[in-house]
């Protein structure tokens, strides 16, 4: 029984493979155009490795100078010229800044305390205080990390003393320091390319098979739904892995990406995102979406994910309904895993909660599509 299942899975996967390698258009789109288009366009737009890309640059942050000294003015100039803090808001007092922190008006407050200049003048360590909004955990640490880097350039004897507002139970993702290469581009490109390609390969492939009658041919043979779904998944996983290598190669050699994680982790994480999308592709296919309509669904899916999954706009920066949508989108957790591994080199196993969510969502997608197909085989066949 198990042997038959394995044989059928490999037979279906082999069949997918033979068809794919014979279809020049499919090869061109899946392995050349999609990876190249997204990597090059994003790389060109961001200037690749030569231009700094800072996610903190436009975040509104209050700058409160309680020292009013030449050193505090110089610090302000250094922060502004760093390119990491272009939206520093002056005019706040410490208490008024803390009052609006958490309302979305400002995300942090940098306070230069009295005596800042004197400490430095006496060769002592001087502190600046950073109040970050704990309602936006990722942002807080991002600002903190970036601030530390910039301040170190200003004067190594200056310390950043983070002060939390509210209870912080949520894990903080540090992002700032590593954003200066194409790493963020690599995260976005890997996510988008895998979603674009795998969704179309599964949902489009199933729709075409249904329209061509080959799915019905498989279904009148003794093979079951499971080998069909798993065989297609197996082959698409191989393709997804090849795509990861292509995107990685382009990102590293053309735009100087330096991922903070090892190759195996990168491949696994990319595959996890691809598998989730394949599961969703099967669900869409179970709803009998035609081959042409799949393209429209894909367009809206990618648009939706661009807006709500934290792929482009940080999940932590979303508010209200957007935030709620983001929380239920399993892809958002996939991108979060991609970010944490690629940008700060977090070991995969330390991201258990995100992994559990995305794996559970993948299993749910597969089970739901299987259930719909099994309940009504004509749905699958015709």
């Amino acid at each position, binding site marked *: 029984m198990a042997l038959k299942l394995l044989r059928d899975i490999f037979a279906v996967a082999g069949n997918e493979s033979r068809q794919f390698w014979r279809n020049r258009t499919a090869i061109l789109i899946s392995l050349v155009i999609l990876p190249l288009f997204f990597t090059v366009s994003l790389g060109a737009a961001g200037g690749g490795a030569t231009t700094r890309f800072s996610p903190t640059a436009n975040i509104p942050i209050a700058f409160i100078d309680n020292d009013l000294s030449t050193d505090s003015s110089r610090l302000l100039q250094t922060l502004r010229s760093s390119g990491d803090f272009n939206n520093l808001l002056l005019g706040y007092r410490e208490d008024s800044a803390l009052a609006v922190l958490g309302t979305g008006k400002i995300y942090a407050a940098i306070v230069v305390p009295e005596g800042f200049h004197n400490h430095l003048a006496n060769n002592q360590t001087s502190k600046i205080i950073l109040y970050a909004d704990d309602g936006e955990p990722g942002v807080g640490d991002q600002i903190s990390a970036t601030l530390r880097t910039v301040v170190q350039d200003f004067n190594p004897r200056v310390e950043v003393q983070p002060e939390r507002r509210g209870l912080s139970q949520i894990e903080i993702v540090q992002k700032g320091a590593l954003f200066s290469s194409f790493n963020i581009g690599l995260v976005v490109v890997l996510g988008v390319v895998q979603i674009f390609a795998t969704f179309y390969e599964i949902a489009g492939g199933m729709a075409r098979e249904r329209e061509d009658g080959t799915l019905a041919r498989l279904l*009148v043979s003794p093979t079951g739904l499971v080998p069909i779904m798993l065989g297609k998944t197996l082959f698409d996983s191989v393709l997804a892995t090849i795509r990861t290598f292509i995107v990685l190669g382009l990102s590293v050699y053309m735009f100087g990406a330096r991922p903070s994680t090892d190759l195996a982790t990168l491949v696994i994480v990319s595959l996890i995102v691809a598998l989730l999308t394949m599961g969703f592709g099967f669900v869409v296919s179970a709803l009998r979406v035609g081959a042409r309509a799949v393209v429209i669904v894909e367009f809206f899916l990618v648009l939706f994910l661009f807006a709500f999954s934290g792929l482009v706009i940080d999940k932590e920066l979303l508010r209200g309904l957007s935030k709620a949508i983001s929380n239920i989108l399993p892809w958002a957790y996939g991108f979060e895993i991609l970010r944490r591994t690629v940008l700060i080199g977090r070991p995969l196993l330390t991201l258990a909660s995100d992994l559990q969510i995305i794996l559970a969502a993948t299993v749910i997608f597969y089970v739901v599509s299987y259930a719909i197909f099994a309940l009504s085989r004509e749905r699958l066949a015709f």
Partner: protein
Amino acid sequence: MAENTITTKGLTKVFGHFTAVDTLNLDVKGGELFGLLGPNGAGKTTTVRMLCTLIDPTRGTANVAGYDIREQAAEVRRNIGVVSEGVSLYKDLTIEENLRLFSTLYDLPRTKAEARIRELMEMFGFREKSKRLVSALSSGWQKKAMICAALLHEPKVLFLDEVTSGLDPQSAIALQDFTRKLCDEGETVIWTTHYMGEPEKICDRVGVVFAGRLVKVGSPNELKHSVSELSTVEVETPGLSATQVEKIRKLGKVCKISYNDPLLRVTCEHHEDLAEEVTKALMGAGARIRAVNTKEPTLEEAFISLTGGEEEIDRFLESSARRK
């Protein structure tokens, strides 16, 4: 007497408010070439899809090759072959590659599969075409390739659903002959079609399907004569006199006679020797005979009569088109 290979009891399929197949009771014997004849939308394909386990019946039971289609679907699939509009081959693969894929799915041992593939390629005359992509073949060869795939695992029952539609007449005739040969060798075949001429030529028995119901089952001859027991002989005989016509009228069993120079039309109850008797009588009366034609009721006439007439069929086809 051969055992039933297919048995259905009250088989019904309802899609929403539309009953595609209504209480189908059918027995098909082993080695029989059974035709399901009906217009598009009559329920033929839905019946085949249910018997192939592609769709579940709403009510009723069916047994195919000794297995229940609901309870033993996997066994049913092992014992059937299907060629249908909706069951096709991978166009980007060669015929051999398609057959190899299906030989794995049907658990054929590799050596046996290779031998069977060679046998089928030979039987259907594929030879050098076996390395061609299916998409590069003509529709006739594609149909043959589909039949190869359906016969690969030596099924007990073969379903051929509208296989000749879209085929050129030569390929259609070749396919009919091949199917007849298969049945003569013991294969059970269900042949669905809306072409009236096909079952008359090749089927052992025909089931007339209309609006989801099996209206009548019988051999093509039985069906034809179930609606009309009359035979007609048309004789082209110029210049016949009234006396000569009267002589023919006096022949036994003649129901109707008409003469419109030069055509004499004689109708009587089904009588195989009618043409001979009329010819003899005319020659005896000194008439000149140019041609003699015997006109039997056709399956098409039988179909029209069994399904309530042409207007009823038109109404059905219109409603069927609206549903689509």
